[in-house]
């Protein structure tokens, strides 16, 4: 373990030397790497990592991607187009902003949508106020690594009263490299009072090489603001992806976090909203679909820190082959968070004998006037429903596809942006073995 850790510590020394400016950030980076040195990679002995062994990540010698720059043409990423979404798109290649592939679009007056690298220069005041203030690098090794190594990502700032009508897409493309690389994308999303935005984080691969994306997104949602965040994982079956979405919610704010995991070899999806102001609402909605040897770990941590907040968690898992899914849903209700209404549901379908799911709800309640419920189901495809569909003339394989799609659709149905939902419906249909049959009936 020490050896693995040392590799990162040595990388950090070189990394830090290479950055110029950003002196104000140095103490943060150093604190983060020092914390990583203490924490090390988590093991299955840690309660929060009981079902996920990160040894495949820890034992691979990843190089920082910054040393290997790759230029892509628009044609090479044309396959990742997102029809109907709009024109606000930042593209990152191996973690680095690619201006020639991006289109800043017209998000509206005063709205900033740019790379974090640029924001380090232009938006220092805002960054200093928010960057690394929320994501817990003090107790979480991957967040600590990201904080130490962050150099690029997206910066979105919506000023007071502004509504960004079109979704803002952040496309992260990883490409073929000679050696396994790692990237530490860092996104900062700030919605000032009374503002609104939709963010889509989309992770894709060109090629099937082993690499590691370690993402941290901090979203600060001001009073009475509305944020919809979509995370789409469709990387190759060799990719490692650990992502952390940390949301700080102000008074009467409304956040929806939607996640769809389809790709990746080992994926850890951390979603951590803190309902810091009174009357906030958050919806945490996810769908994970694994096959082969994929491992998908969803770790939710919903913190109610103020009174009168509502949270809803819905996660659906479909696991085929020898895939392994994990859902951990922790709800923490702080002492003062009276009148909390928190609900959590995790439903899973296992399509094969070898597929596996671990579902773990956890309630930590320190207030005395709250409503918290949780429930999980694990089941197979409903043969009665198959028979019902067949008895109406629908062929067996089409009936199966309809049921699987229907199960996934409970989750997709909660996604309010039509263009995003439709694209995800298409991706999910592609994933299904009999998905082609759905084209006729959808």
């Amino acid at each position, binding site marked *: 373990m020490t050896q693995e850790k040392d590799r990162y510590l040595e990388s950090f020394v070189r990394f830090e030397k290479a950055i110029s400016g950003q002196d104000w950030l140095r103490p943060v980076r150093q604190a983060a790497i020092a914390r990583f040195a203490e924490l090390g990679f988590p093991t299955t002995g840690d309660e929060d990592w009981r079902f996920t062994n990160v040894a495949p990540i820890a034992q691979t010698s990843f190089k920082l991607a910054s040393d290997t720059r790759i230029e892509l043409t628009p044609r090479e990423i044309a396959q990742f187009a997102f029809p109907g979404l709009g024109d606000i798109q930042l593209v990152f290649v191996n973690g680095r902003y690619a201006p020639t592939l991006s289109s800043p679009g017209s998000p509206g007056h005063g709205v900033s949508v740019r790379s974090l690298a640029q924001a380090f220069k232009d938006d220092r005041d805002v960054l200093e106020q928010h960057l690394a203030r929320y994501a817990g690098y003090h107790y979480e090794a991957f967040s600590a690594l990201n904080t130490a190594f962050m150099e690029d990502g997206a910066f979105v700032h919506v000023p007071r009263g502004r509504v960004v009508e079109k979704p803002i897409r952040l496309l992260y493309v990883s490409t073929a490299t000679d050696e396994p690389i790692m990237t530490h994308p860092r996104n900062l999303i700030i919605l000032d009072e009374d503002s609104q935005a939709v963010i889509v984080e989309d992770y894709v691969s060109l090629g099937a090489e082993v690499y590691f994306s370690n993402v941290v997104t901090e979203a600060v949602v001001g009073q009475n603001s509305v944020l919809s965040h979509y995370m789409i994982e469709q990387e190759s079956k060799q990719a490692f992806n650990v992502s952390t979405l940390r949301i700080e919610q102000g008074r009467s704010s409304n956040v929806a976090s939607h996640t769809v995991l389809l790709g990746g070899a080992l994926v850890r999806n951390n979603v951590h909203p803190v309902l810091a102001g009174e009357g906030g609402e958050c919806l945490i909605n996810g769908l994970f679909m694994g096959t082969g040897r994929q491992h998908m770990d969803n770790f939710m941590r919903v913190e109610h820190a103020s009174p009168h907040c509502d949270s809803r968690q819905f996660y659906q898992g479909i696991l085929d082959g020898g895939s392994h899914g994990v859902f951990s849903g922790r709800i923490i209700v702080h002492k003062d968070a009276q009148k909390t209404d928190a609900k959590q549901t995790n439903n899973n379908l296992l399509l094969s004998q070898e597929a596996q799911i671990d579902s773990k709800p956890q309630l930590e309640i320190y207030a005395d006037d709250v409503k918290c419920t949780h429930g999980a189901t694990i089941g197979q495809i*409903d043969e*009665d*429903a198959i*028979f*019902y*569909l*067949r*008895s*109406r*003339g*629908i*062929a*067996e394989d*089409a*009936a199966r596809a*309809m*049921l699987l*799609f*229907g*199960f*996934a*659709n*409970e989750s997709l*149905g909660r996604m309010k942006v039509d263009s995003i939902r439709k694209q995800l419906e298409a991706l999910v249909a592609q994933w299904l073995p009999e998905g082609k049959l759905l084209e*006729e*009936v*959808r």
Partner: protein
Amino acid sequence: MLEIKNLHAKVGDHKILKGVNLKVNVGEVHSIMGPNGSGKSTLAQILAGRETYEVIEGEIIYDGKNLLEMPPEERACDGVFMAFQYPVEIPGVGSAQFLKAALNAIRKVRGLEELDAMEFLALVKEKIKDLGMDEKLLHRSVNEGFSGGEKKRNEIFQMALLEPRLCVMDETDSGLDIDALKIVAKGVNDLRSPERAIIIVTHYQRLLNYVIPDYVHVLVDGQIVKSGGKELALELEEKGYAWVEEGAGAAR
């Protein structure tokens, strides 16, 4: 049209049907009545192709074909329809999508053009109105959150939409209030035609006040022990199933 010959069936080790014989001609309405556990629903489910039941003897000839060799979807496409006693809730699958898939699968086999979204919607809206159902049901998931009565009406609605040639109704009347019962009965009567046969499986005589059967059969312990005209239903209502059960016992 349909001929059931010496049908024996079981679930696991439990024998349920013990030699059922029944002949149904096109244009006829038959009612199969019987006490709980007599095998009525088993017979209906076997006609629809439920694999839970194992046929150990006998055969079912439908339009000259061996029905038991056809998978459920093939039977449906060939005009067999069973209205479920307990329709299944299918969350996430929209009613409209389901109905369109079913209708077009059946139309394809019948050599008819598949309907596009507009034509389909026009047809569905017309039929749904006939059954006094809310169009909003089309936007909901199949049977999800439907009341018992809504589920039963939804079965009849599907039957009207898919225009089968052999309709099997598995206790569609049980649990319905009088208003819903009348709507269901009207739906069935509207489907009565010289090109179609209907089998009504029921425990009670109530529905038969509104849908007058041509023949009534009484199923007891896996066998048809008595057959007659519509007046047999009334006699059963008056005397109870004990009357035929005793008779059946004495005959054996």
